[in-house]
């Protein structure tokens, strides 16, 4: 008796819930197609896939492509180089992650509000343009016909113009420079809003105690910003082998390729440009697996140190 009562009570609600499910079904189908279906593409890495043939007509090679970067001397050399670039550039990025915080702290020291707003507005613009436009900006400055060459040749320092975009020295530092140029102002925003939410009474108390400007920055502002910085830093650990392709594709050319070819770009070149789909998929899978692992490591780290997980 009681049981039927419960069922009766739940039934219209269940029906409504099922209707909601049906209404969201197209979206769920989209998730299935665009996020889960590509996983089936991983099967290509177990075959010797030749474009134009059906997958099952191709030779099954097991884990050949997965161990290829370690066994084949040529591929191993490439793989080591690519991994060195990937990790080197990303570690440089991580080493400079403190800069947006410092940027925000000093920006808030500017008393003239109009100027502060202007700086903030203009320095965040580069974040909203594509890497192609970033490349265009540096192309205008550093290419053979660019500003720097005009100045140097005009001043007699150089006799013939050099294309600074194809010189290979300090390539990682240059990539870091482009990265900071684009992201520094934007990265500071989260810290700026953290600073404005610090209780001003703390500063007032410090004033009464006779604390100077830098003492306040060091003893009040910094400790308030460190938790935010920590979250950003831990998130970056999960991304340490992800670079994206954009930045590296626009800045790469025949000269610089050896120094800036990162994992994502390597996969693209092998898979879509040279047509070695199976090998590229295997390398991509390595990347995906290590990434997921790193995300878990980062999360565990965060739990241990801060007592709260970030995901």
């Amino acid at each position, binding site marked *: 008796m009681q049981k039927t009562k419960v069922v009766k009570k739940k039934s219209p609600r269940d029906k409504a819930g099922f209707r909601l499910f049906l209404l969201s079904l197209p979206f769920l189908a989209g998730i299935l197609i665009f996020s889960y279906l590509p996983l089936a593409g991983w099967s290509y890495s177990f075959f010797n896939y030749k474009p134009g043939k059906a997958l099952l007509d191709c030779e099954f090679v097991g884990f050949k492509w997965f161990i290829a970067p370690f066994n084949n001397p040529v591929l191993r050399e490439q793989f080591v180089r690519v991994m060195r670039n990937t990790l080197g550039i990303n570690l440089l990025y991580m080493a400079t992650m403190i800069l947006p915080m410092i940027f925000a702290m000093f920006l808030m020291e500017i008393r003239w509000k109009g100027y502060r707003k202007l700086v903030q507005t203009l320095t965040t613009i580069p974040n909203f343009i594509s890497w192609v436009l970033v490349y265009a900006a540096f192309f205008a400055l550093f290419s053979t016909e660019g500003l720097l060459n005009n100045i140097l040749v005009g001043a007699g320092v150089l006799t013939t113009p050099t294309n600074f975009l194809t010189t290979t020295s300090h390539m990682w530092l240059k990539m870091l420079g482009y990265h900071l140029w684009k992201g520094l102002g934007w990265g500071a925003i989260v810290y700026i809003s953290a600073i404005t939410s610090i209780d001003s009474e703390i500063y007032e108390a410090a004033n009464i105690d006779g604390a100077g*400007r830098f003492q306040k920055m060091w003893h009040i502002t910094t400790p308030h910003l460190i938790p935010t910085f920590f979250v950003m830093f831990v998130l970056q650990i999960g991304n340490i082998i992800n670079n994206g392709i954009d930045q590296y594709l*626009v800045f790469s050319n025949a000269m610089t390729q050896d120094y800036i070819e990162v994992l994502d770009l390597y996969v693209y070149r092998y898979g879509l440009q040279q047509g070695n789909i199976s090998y590229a998929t295997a390398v991509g899978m390595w990347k995906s697996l290590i990434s997921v692992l790193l995300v878990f490591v980062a999360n565990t780290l965060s739990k241990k140190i801060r007592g709260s997980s970030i995901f």
Partner: protein
Amino acid sequence: MARNKKEDESRSVEQRTWRDHIVDIVICLIFGIFTIICIYPFYYIFINTISDNSLVATGRISFIPRGIHFANYVKVLSLKELPGAAVVSLARTVLGTIFTIICAAFPAYCFSREEYWHKKIFYRFVIITMYFSAGVIPTFLTYRTIGIYDTFWVYILPCCVTPFNLILVKTYMESLPQSLEESAEIDGAGYMVRFMRIVMPLCKPILATIAVFSAVGQWNNWMDTVLYTKNRDLQTLQYVLYRYLKEANTLAEIARENPEMMAEMDPATMLSPLTIKYTVCIVTILPILVVYPFFQKYFVKGMMVGAVKG
């Protein structure tokens, strides 16, 4: 705002020495220099597009435009691939944004209702996709299999399934007062009516933020053109710029194909490949710069919701 004001007042009370003033000036100067570094490249490109082309070719325009003319813009717009690319860019920006908004708002509404059928399971099914990615090559293979490779839809459809947007909207919807929807429910309004008439209008602020980010993302995206299209008709402005910057002399050839157009120009306004690149660059960046001041508050808000969820 009030807190800011208070803080400023409290700071002005403190005694200021000449040392403080020097530190102030140094800080302002350093930020001034960085700001100029961020903006100057585009100023430089811009003055080079409107200055006398023969001066540009000899590299004599660095700070002040000279011999101002707009012939470069007129000519660039008459290039045959550029209007098409502009249309594609515009279409993907508008359509992509509309689709993104709908595909974020409606599923978010569904998942914001407690009675959703096996809510926990399906919500996890959606959210977990944020933490893995099959990679470029399997994605490429999938697009080819389902037939959106090398079509316009490759720009639109993949952006519609962004769990991150869904979380943002869902969280916002759950913070709305429940009573409004309940009263409509009692009046017999179904899910669609309640979503369209009550929930959507209340969600305008968060949807506006997502729309602005999606529009900028769509306008700026060129990697999908590189990876998932072949057809020249599908190229966007960004991609055209990419090609122009990379293929140094493509445009000189195009100009050579139209000698009658070139013949009636005097040498001073003759197009050099460099000025074409610069002009395409300005055409591509202009929409961003024009809308940026109006939408700045949305950008900042977007960063904040992102940080809270992150």
